[in-house]
Every structure is written in structure tokens, then in C-alpha cells.
């Protein structure tokens, strides 16, 4: 365990001040890999739809750690580090594969789909010369394994024997919200990969921050897709780490505070030349046109009208983050809805009308936080707590993130 005593102390007992060093400190970044990503939390690995066949595997990441998630020939899920027990090379290069064994290219050591070392090339030497010592026990060598489990078609894994079961980790409110959008067989539509010039936590905070949506994302507000006057709310689970924010379409009403604010976002008379893009279908039958959900620490489920995706936030260094988007629809989509999802994919992703700013804004904070040791950001909209709230002019779920982060990091 690393010594974290030289890190700046958290300023006070509360959640309303976030020291800027949490985005920049290399020692803290290393500690997160150990305490959080290899600690008692469940981490998103892939969608089950990305691993549909028995005897197949995919590569993914838990924090920085390369991981293989597999489905054995009986259909059971497994996960283990993508690192050969011999010299540490990646066992699987690329996206994945299928078969009963995964073989490292370097010296051809091979593994079964549970991550057990099964074969060592030339283990007995060649013509009686060389080879491994007689006492070498393959069962005692292998990549570290994770517990793997699935919920709502999403595969999660944890390195920790101490983490609660996945269902308990998610809790009933978040499971229900996930099941709302992931209730039937999924059809993959494709992936986006985006490199963000900032610490991973800045992206996660941005997703949890419902306050910024209509202020930064002018496109959204301009077409009244997401105004803070819409009916909506933010649910935060007891740990603070998971959240779901939502809003309901066509409940918009005039709001004087909004109009008087003189917001940049509010540009009267700006209309789309082709409004087919924003004509959504109420496919879940509850009028909720937007649901953004996070599972602590790095998983996002997104419903923006009919644009559905999961996002996986992968740290690549203290100031570099990869954002992996997996866009999906459902096997029973009719042709009109299938086309609508492809059109509404314009709203999200690296070039999304309402998400492109999120790719850059974390970098603005990362750059702004230079030379800010000892200073802290203010997270006080909607009070000091991390409870569920009506309305979305609040940072309650951002505070929730820090509540969960502090608990697992011991800071």
C-alpha cells in the first residue's frame, strides 16, 4: 500500500470543495489503480452482446489494467488479466477471438478461457535439453483473475473478494433504471473511441453534472430538448457513487428565471432546416426522453431520445483518458426506428451536437488546474449533500461521486 500521507488533506469533512490536485497528482493516480480499480468495486467490462458466442473472448480494461473477458463453451463468463504469466506480454492482441485456448504470441504459453495456464511450449525441453524445472507447477502461475457477473446485459468484473455481489453493488434503484433501457435483446450499432486530454474523474464528474447541460450545450437548449424547466430529477444511491438523471419531454413551461438569465444558450428563432433529427419516439412508453446513468466509478449508460449507448471511461495516465462508446439498438427495432437511431447518433459521440463540448471541457479544467496546488473547486449547487433531488440545477451527484471516491480511497 502506498503512503498517501504526503497528498494534500481533503479540505474539511464535506463534499463541496474538491482539491484541484486530485486531477494532477501522479501518486494519487497510482493509488487509485490499487485502491479503486483493483479494490472493492465492480467495473464495466463489456456488453453481453459483444460476447454473444460460447468459447470467445474480448479485450477490455479495468483502470489501466488490460483484461480479457471471456465466455466459456458452457456460456459462463470469466475475466482475468490480459498479461502472460511468463514475461508479461499481452496474451491477446486486438479485439478478441474465439476458440478453446488463448495463446501468447511471444513464447506460445497458452490459457483456457478461465485464465488457467494450460500449456508451456517446450516445457520438457528439446531432446532432453532445456525445458522448465520438474517442479514447475502451471496451476500456480497465471494471470490474476476477476470475479465476473452480468446484469441487464452488462458484464462487470472485480478483482476484490470483498466486493459485495453485483446486484448489491448496483442496488435496486440503479438496477431498475438500467433495466428500463436494457430490457430486451441488443443489436450493436458500432463504437466510437475518443481520447480526452484530462484526468478520468473530470469526465465522470461532467457526466454526473446535470447543472452544466443546458449552459454548455447550446444545441440542446436551443431546440428545447433539455431545459432545466423540464420535469426531471437526479437520483443518487446511498453510496453516492451511482446516479441517474432524467427528464421528461413535452412538459416544458415558461420559466422567468431561465429567460431572465440571458443565457447564451437561448437563441430565439433558431430552427433546424431538417428537424427529422430531433423527432424522437417514446420507445419506453414513459415520456422520459433523457436518462443518463453512472455506475461508480467509470460506467455510463445513455439514453438521449432514441440514441442509446454505454460509455466506458478508461484512464490512460493522470491527464489522459480514453472514452469508449458502444452504440446499440434492439433486435426488434423496426426500420424506421433503426434509421432514427442512426440519425440521433449525431447528438452524441465525439462529434455529437450535444456531446462534443464534453470532450474538451475536461481539458479546460485540466489546464486551468495547473499551479493550483492548495486550491479547490466549488461544488455547492443544490446544497452540501448527495441525496436524490428534483430538478437538475444541482451538483448533488457530483458530490455523491466524491463521497464514494473518498470512502474507497480512504482520503
Amino acid at each position, binding site marked *: 500500500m502506498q503512503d498517501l500521507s504526503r497528498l494534500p488533506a481533503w479540505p474539511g469533512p464535506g463534499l463541496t470543495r474538491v482539491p484541484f490536485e486530485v486531477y494532477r497528482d501522479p501518486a494519487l493516480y497510482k493509488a487509485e489503480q490499487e485502491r479503486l480499480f483493483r479494490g472493492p468495486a465492480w467495473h464495466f467490462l463489456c456488453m453481453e452482446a459483444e460476447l454473444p458466442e460460447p468459447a470467445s473472448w474480448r479485450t477490455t480494461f479495468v483502470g489501466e489494467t488490460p483484461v480479457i473477458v471471456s465466455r466459456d463453451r458452457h456460456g459462463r463468463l470469466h475475466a482475468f488479466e490480459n498479461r502472460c504469466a511468463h514475461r508479461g506480454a499481452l496474451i491477446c492482441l486486438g479485439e478478441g477471438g474465439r476458440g478453446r485456448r488463448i495463446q501468447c504470441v511471444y513464447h506460445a504459453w497458452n490459457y483456457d478461457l478461465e485464465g488457467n495456464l494450460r500449456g508451456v511450449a517446450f516445457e520438457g525441453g528439446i531432446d532432453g535439453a532445456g525445458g522448465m524445472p520438474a517442479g514447475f507447477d502451471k496451476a500456480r502461475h497465471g494471470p490474476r483473475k476477476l470475479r465476473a457477473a452480468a446484469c441487464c446485459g452488462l458484464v462487470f468484473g472485480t478483482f476484490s473478494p470483498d466486493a459485495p455481489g453485483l446486484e448489491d453493488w448496483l442496488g435496486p434503484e440503479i438496477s431498475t433504471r438500467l433495466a428500463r433501457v436494457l430490457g430486451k435483446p441488443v443489436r*450493436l*450499432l*458500432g*463504437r*466510437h*473511441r*475518443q*481520447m*480526452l*486530454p484530462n484526468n478520468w474523474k473530470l469526465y465522470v464528474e461532467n457526466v454526473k453534472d446535470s447543472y452544466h447541460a443546458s449552459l*454548455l450545450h*447550446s*444545441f440542446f437548449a*436551443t431546440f428545447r430538448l433539455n431545459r432545466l424547466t423540464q420535469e426531471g430529477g437526479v437520483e443518487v444511491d446511498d453510496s453516492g457513487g451511482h446516479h441517474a438523471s432524467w427528464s421528461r419531454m413535452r412538459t416544458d413551461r415558461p420559466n422567468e428565471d431561465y429567460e431572465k438569465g440571458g443565457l447564451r444558450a437561448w*437563441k430565439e428563432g*433558431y430552427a*433546424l*432546416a*431538417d428537424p*427529422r*433529427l430531433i423527432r424522437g419516439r417514446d420507445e419506453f412508453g414513459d415520456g422520459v426522453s433523457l436518462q443518463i446513468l453512472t455506475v461508480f466509478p467509470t460506467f455510463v449508460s445513455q439514453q438521449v431520445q432514441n440514441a442509446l449507448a454505454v460509455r466506458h471511461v478508461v484512464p490512460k495516465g493522470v491527464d489522459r483518458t*480514453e472514452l469508449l462508446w458502444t*452504440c446499440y439498438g434492439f433486435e426488434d427495432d423496426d426500420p424506421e426506428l433503426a434509421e432514427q437511431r*442512426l*440519425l440521433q*447518433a*449525431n447528438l452524441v*459521440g*465525439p*462529434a*455529437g*451536437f450535444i456531446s*462534443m*463540448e464534453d*470532450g*474538451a471541457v475536461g*481539458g479546460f479544467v485540466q489546464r486551468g488546474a495547473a499551479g493550483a496546488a492548495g486550491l479547490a473547486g466549488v461544488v455547492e449547487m443544490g446544497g452540501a449533500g448527495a441525496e436524490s433531488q428534483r430538478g437538475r440545477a444541482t451538483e448533488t451527484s457530483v458530490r455523491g461521486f466524491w463521497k464514494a471516491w473518498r470512502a474507497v480511497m480512504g482520503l
Partner: protein
Amino acid sequence: MSGLQDALDGLFARYAMAIDDDRLEDWLGLFAEDCRYRIASRENVEAGLPVSVVYADGRAMLADRVSALRRANIYEAQRYRHVIGRALVEAGPPAAARAGYHVARIMREGDLMLFSTGEYRAAFDEALRIREMTVVYDNARIDTLLALPL
């Protein structure tokens, strides 16, 4: 054939310079009214997965993309510099062609990076307006965001 070759090379050059000069409204003029335009990763295209990062069904949607860039979206000031290879004419007329590109991105503060490489797969109408174009980008990862069209 050489007439068509020259015409298509000229069209791709106009396409590039319109974007690089920040004349996106002129860029729109290169497309047919009922065009389809998409920017998609090679990874998705080769896997047969249909999602794009930019998809416009008709020039009106492309025009909305341009007006959103002008009026709604927030992104740091940036320019592109395209280098487009000679068009490989695959059919015509009506013409179909492919051409490879490099796009460097130059940020306001002066940072320059090779932002994207890839190819245009395009089909044209009789008047050599773009009827269909897929920009297939090789770099699976997009740095920060994609605002301007490739």
C-alpha cells in the same frame, strides 16, 4: 477518362480548400440536395456496423451541421489542413471515386497534430455534385472532439 479524372481531382481540391479556408457554406454547395454524407471509422465500416460520428441524410441536415458549428457548438478555435491524394476513378459517368486524405489540425495556440487519415468514398451526379460520400477514417481514436467535417 482524363477529363473526368481532372474534374474529380479538382472537386476534391475544392472540397478540401473550402473546409481549410473555413468556407463551410461553399463546402455545402458541392453536395446534391438529396445527398447522404457520413463520417465513420474504418473499424465500424469493416465490421459492417452502421453507426457514424456524423451522418446527414440530405443537404439540409448538412446545413444544420454547419449552422450548429457557427451558432450553437462550443469548441476551441481550430483549422484543418487537408492533403488529398489523386482520385481513383472507379466508375463514370455518373462518377464514383475514392481518394486518400491526411488532415492536420492546428489549434489557436499553435499546436499542430496529424488529426486524421482516411479515404473518401464518393459517388457523384451528372453535374458532379456529391450524391453520396462516406469519409472512412483510419484513426480509431478521435482526439478530444470532431467539430469541423473531415
